């Protein structure tokens, strides 16, 4: 029974398209995150939600918009995809903000 699950695992799309990545956690955690791992393998936080409220919004283009319909879900929508958006995107959750986070398996996004 997967704790943090994200779909799809792989996503290949053309430049200019709009795509979404879904994330769900069944741990009962209050906080959810989106992280991006780029080609240099840096894991950088993009967004954090606590109880459906946005609490961290790093310097991320407006084309990226997180949506949290409830505490168990945090989806990531990306508009007008660019080549530089190619990366692995990880969803994560934690019981409280800034404590140990549990990660999903990642979504490898390739923009062609």
């Amino acid at each position: 029974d997967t704790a943090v699950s994200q779909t799809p695992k792989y996503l290949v799309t053309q430049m200019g398209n709009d795509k979404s990545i879904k994330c769900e956690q069944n741990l009962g955690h209050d906080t959810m995150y989106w992280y991006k791992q780029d080609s240099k393998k840096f894991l950088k936080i993009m967004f954090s939600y606590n109880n459906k409220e946005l609490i961290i919004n790093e310097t991320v283009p407006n084309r990226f918009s997180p949506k949290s319909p409830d505490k168990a879900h945090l989806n990531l929508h990306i508009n007008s995809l660019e080549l530089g958006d190619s990366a692995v995107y990880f969803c994560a959750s934690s019981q409280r903000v800034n404590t140990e986070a549990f990660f999903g398996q990642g979504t490898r996004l390739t923009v062609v």
Partner: protein
Amino acid sequence: DQQVKQNSPSLSVQEGRISILNCDYTNSMFDYFLWYKKYPAEGPTFLISISSIKDKNEDGRFTVFLNKSAKHLSLHIVPSQPGDSAVYFCAASSRFGNEKLTFGTGTRLTIIP
């Protein structure tokens, strides 16, 4: 500005010996430190953590040491096993403050049978 640094991109250790992974941080507001392990095509998995009020925390074969004055922490794995081969990420945050969970760049550990 990389606030959490792992200066060794890779490390090879003989099976059965001790693996020591190092991590340095620059932000004195960090008070909570974690180690994660990552296999290819999987998400990072939480391993062990330590609060700044301690200098050592042990969990089975894994021990994390914290030297606050040097802003340095290390992960010891004894004895090393082939299944320990993975990328290890150090991370830091301030649990009750505003410092978000920040990751190092990772060290790839290879255990040689």
